[in-house]
């Protein structure tokens, strides 16, 4: 498994062989013990939820919502089908942690799902895996077959009267299908478009039944919460930010890749683990939580620790834990142009502010980058983001606006320079020096 480094690993501990995804390997690492314990010790669903609440596990999909609280919204006693969904769509630019969890430790996800299903009374589960990396889907199917054969999934799990059917479902590469309600539509065989909330999935989810959606990493953490205890899991992180976290570090670092560190680890430590800024250059800015998170200038970032609260204080979000590092060779206009293009292309097109607004944002930034900006553009960008944020069906509208607002806030001079001088503040040769593309072809 491609974790390049870790501090006190939990999720990725022992993942160094090449068959770690096999059931036998997982069991040898203590896998499925938590599930067995539930039935051996007669833990009630309430006990499980209490333990998860104690751990202060917060959703790893981006919003950081407390998982135990989310689970308690499920109407457990309601008769009829109830669903648990694992969100492995992982489409946020910069994020590539779930795929490594799925390829290296799929049984942790399966065990986590079975435990979660037990806690919420879910009857059926789906793991929605994005379609871009097909081998992940195939591997998960294989792992599922193993788990089924061993009695961890299916009817009367481990001889108890608890049954839970689990299936893999693959997407086809639309970012929006990672949004939980678009994901539900997609599983139902419809076009992946977010639903208006309320009603929330806990009352009206997949096929209209109560449903809970959790991120892959969130669910993979669950077995460890039960095995080490909620308190210990919390302590493995930081108050209000329980547990360890996988960070996908990308951009201008020497060793881009996934790192598992305790919540609350200083950013500087993480940067060091990733080999520091490439070429020994100066750090310029960091997007600490995936492309939707506001950008944070270097000096501010160097003071942060990697947890929800600290990053929030710096005006950004921990999000999915995708750390995009930019050095001094980066043109911030160009960087924002690329981000805006992504949201423009990935808006589902359903609601007016996002459908029209993301396109408009991109077109303006594209113009500025190409030397055709006009002075009013910055004002217009600011105004448009205000008209998009909080006015859309799903959070993609906000996700598209926050980068624009933060880039303008922290790097306004670069935009102004572009408009006035019709060229980059960062000279082109400097940009090229920092680009693998140009250095590779040179």
């Amino acid at each position, binding site marked *: 498994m491609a974790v390049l480094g870790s501090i006190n690993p939990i999720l990725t501990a022992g993942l160094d062989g090449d068959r770690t995804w096999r059931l036998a390997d997982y069991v040898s690492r203590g896998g499925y013990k938590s599930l067995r314990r539930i039935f051996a010790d007669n833990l009630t669903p309430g006990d499980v939820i209490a333990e998860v609440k104690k751990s202060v596990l917060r959703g790893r999909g981006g919003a950081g919502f407390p998982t135990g609280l989310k689970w308690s919204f499920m109407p457990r006693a309601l008769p009829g089908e109830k669903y648990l969904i694992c969100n492995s769509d992982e489409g946020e630019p910069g994020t590539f942690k779930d795929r490594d969890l799925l390829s290296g430790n799929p049984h942790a996800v399966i065990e986590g799902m079975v435990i979660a299903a037990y806690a919420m009374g879910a009857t059926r589960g789906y793991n929605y895996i994005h379609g871009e990396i097909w081998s992940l889907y195939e591997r998960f199917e294989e792992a599922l077959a193993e788990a089924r054969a061993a009695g961890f999934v299916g009817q009367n799990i481990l001889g108890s009267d608890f049954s839970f059917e689990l299936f893999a479902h693959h997407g086809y590469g639309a970012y929006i299908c990672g949004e939980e309600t678009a994901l539900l539509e997609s599983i139902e065989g419809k076009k992946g478009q977010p639903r208006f909330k309320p009603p929330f999935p806990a009352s009206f989810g997949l096929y209209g039944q109560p449903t809970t959606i959790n991120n892959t990493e969130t669910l993979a953490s669950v077995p460890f919460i039960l095995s080490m205890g909620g308190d210990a899991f919390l302590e493995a992180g930081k108050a209000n930010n329980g547990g360890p976290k996988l960070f996908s570090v990308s951009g201008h670092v020497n060793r881009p890749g996934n790192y598992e560190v305790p919540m609350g680890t200083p950013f500087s430590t993480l940067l060091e683990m990733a080999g520091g800024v490439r070429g020994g250059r100066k750090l310029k800015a960091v997007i600490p939580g995936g492309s939707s998170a506001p950008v944070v200038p270097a000096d501010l970032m160097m003071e942060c620790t990697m947890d929800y609260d600290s990053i929030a204080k710096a005006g950004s979000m921990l999000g999915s834990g995708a750390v995009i590092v930019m050095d001094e060779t980066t043109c911030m206009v160009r960087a924002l142009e690329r981000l805006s293009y992504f949201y423009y292309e990935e808006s589902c097109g359903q609601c*007016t502010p996002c459908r029209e607004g993301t396109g408009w944002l991109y077109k*303006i930034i594209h113009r500025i980058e190409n030397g055709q900006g006009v002075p009013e553009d910055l004002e217009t960008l600011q105004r448009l983001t205000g008209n998009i944020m909080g006015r859309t069906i799903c959070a993609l509208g906000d996700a598209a606006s926050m980068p624009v607002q933060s880039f303008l806030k922290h790097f306004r001079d670069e935009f102004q320079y572009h408009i006035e001088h019709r060229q980059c503040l960062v000279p082109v040769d400097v940009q090229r020096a920092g680009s693998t593309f140009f250095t590779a072809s040179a």
Partner: protein
Amino acid sequence: MPEIEIDGQLVQAPEGATIMEVAEQLGVYIPHFCYHKKLSIAANCRMCLVQVEKAAKPVPACATPATNGMKVFTHSSLAVKAQQGVMEFLLINHPLDCPICDQGGECQLQDLAVGYGAGASHYQEEKRVVFHKDAGSLISMQEMSRCIHCTRCVRFGQEIAGVMEFGMANRTMHSEIVTFLGRSVDSELSGNMIDLCPVGALTSKPFRFAARSWELSRLPSISLHDSVGANLTVQARNHRVMRVLPRENEAVNECWISDRDRFSYEGLNSPERLTKPMIRVDGQLREVEWSVALDYAAHGLRDIVARHGADEIAALAAPWSTLEEMHLLQKVVRGLGSGNVDFRPRRYDYAPSGVPAGARWLGMRIAELNELDTALVVGSFVRKDIPLFAQRLRQAAKHNGTRVTLISLGNDDPLMAMHEHVVVAPSELPAALARVVKAAALQCRVPVPAGLEAIVPDIPSEAIATSLRVRGRSMIFLGRVAVQHPHAVQIHVLAQHLSDITGANLGFFGDSGNIVGGYLSGALPSARNARTMFTDPRRAYVMLGIEPELDCHNPQLTLAALRQADLRIVLSPFISEAMREYADVLLPVAPFTETSGTFVNAEGRVQSFKGVVRPLGEARPAWKVLRVLGNLLNLDGFDQESSEEVRDAVLPPETLIDGEFASGLDNGIKLPIDPAALVSAKGVFERVADVPIYFSDPLVRRAPALQKTRDAAPPTARMSARTLAEAGLVAGAPVRLRQESIAGSGEAVLTAALDDGVPDGCVRVSAAHPATAALGDMFGTIQVEPV
């Protein structure tokens, strides 16, 4: 009930209502595009954003439930700013060229842009271009750049029409409304999407660029095409009808109309309109003055009475004639001393006693269709026969869990969840119903009605009987096929037994526009009916509003009778080729838009209307023509001053229920079951005749746009693979069809087509089309041979 405050007004909100609904009830207007009261909530346009106290962000009123204590501000600066922001986004890619847009002047976007749009656009980038599409002859998709992606059209298809004709393809700014794999958009309800589209993206192809909305008069009228009696707004300019729109009436047509109701108006301006009276002189039709034509007609009728007796006169009214017209026609005939009058040209089988217990009607109010627990529909191509009843049943099945069962002659998809769908050959239809009767009797432990001894219930009939019996409110409906069937009376008798046994009520869908009005008008035979007046040919015929060669059960029989007659008087808005051949007197009468009159719909609702334009050429309202004819014949009781006077004589206002429903409606029948009706045909091919929706009456047959739709394709001889093989045919090859009747042998050559929805041993050959008019009975034996 939650109490909420909207713009300072306190109001009790119905449980589960949204802010939008409560505001509407309060008369507070919240701007919106995607919201429509009949469609699911999409919340995608975001135009309806309002401020709610304590909410951090503006919320969409259409999707936010009203909760107790909520304080809503629809016009606060936060709300208005949000609305203006959305409006700006809606307009950036919208072509701002309202003066050349067909929707201009009646566009929701244009209207709201006046209130919420900025004076000038800040958008300096290139606008999106969306290519036009071909959606067939009814809906124009020429201007798809105007679409604002509200998905009303998509939701209409999914939810109301039951068939998703439009979808939204692609993501982002590139989202566009497309037809399904380029298919034409012409389900029987498609035109409603033109009304739903808030902008000029989907427009009426026939109306496009013909007029501006503000140049048009708008007058109320009633549709004649089916027994719904859909309420219409007819728009005209310079005494020419330019467009027909639904007039909302929740109890009748809601806010919908069928495409037939909407686009048939084109026929009003057909070149085949008869605009001058004509009489036959020396074998040639000549245009003459009204007085000459009427004199000729009166003289001719008197002459027949004098020389051969009044019994030699017969009159047949179209069932889409007005109540007043039918009443005066029978009055003329009866005044002359004849009892040969009818208004049911497609009927074959008539109850022996002649006059029924009452007018055959729906058996309940139309709006109650949505509330039924069980509906058994016998003999109907329901979607195409009565689109809006099908629509209501579809909603009922979906939202109310109504169990809908169809016993029919083809498995045409009714586009709704079916409890059971039994498909049988025409000759098996009575037996199929009899099985349900027997199953019900056995289940209810009541004596099995005499005559059903040989009947053995099967699994579907048991299930249908159970569904009628066990739960709530049940209805048995007899559709068009059931009343046009050779054993229509026995089918009625069986349905009556089923009703008696199960407690389900009995109703008739009605096979044409003013069928209930016909019963009430008195135009029922006291001697020969619409069939026997032709099997036993008369010397003089008066035809009102009908093309007998297409509209009678057996056109061949009718034509033979007309040909041998001495006098043929035709009152018609149109002149057909056949009329040129047989008519002796042609009197141009006004279609429904050019006369006042009354239609009584299936539920007994008496709906009077006025003419919306003046009669074309020398056409005159038929009620006036008949009144003059009565006077010329020196008959009593023809001095009415207005059509209202005629109506009030037939339906005295004091007899109306709630002031709007006719009394004297009764579906009861008391006759023994005849086991002979329960024997199915053996060893012969049977004809199954539907009346295709766009061939159903003279007006719609002349509406060009409708005639270009899929449903107006020329008839073929449709058979199952098995029937084709049995007849030695291959699909696509020509086939000779022959039917015998007392009038002789009739023939047609059509193309054989494969349709496994047709029961084995049957050939589906549509009626009401010139290509099949030479054939005989709608459901008789038919011979099939390769050409």
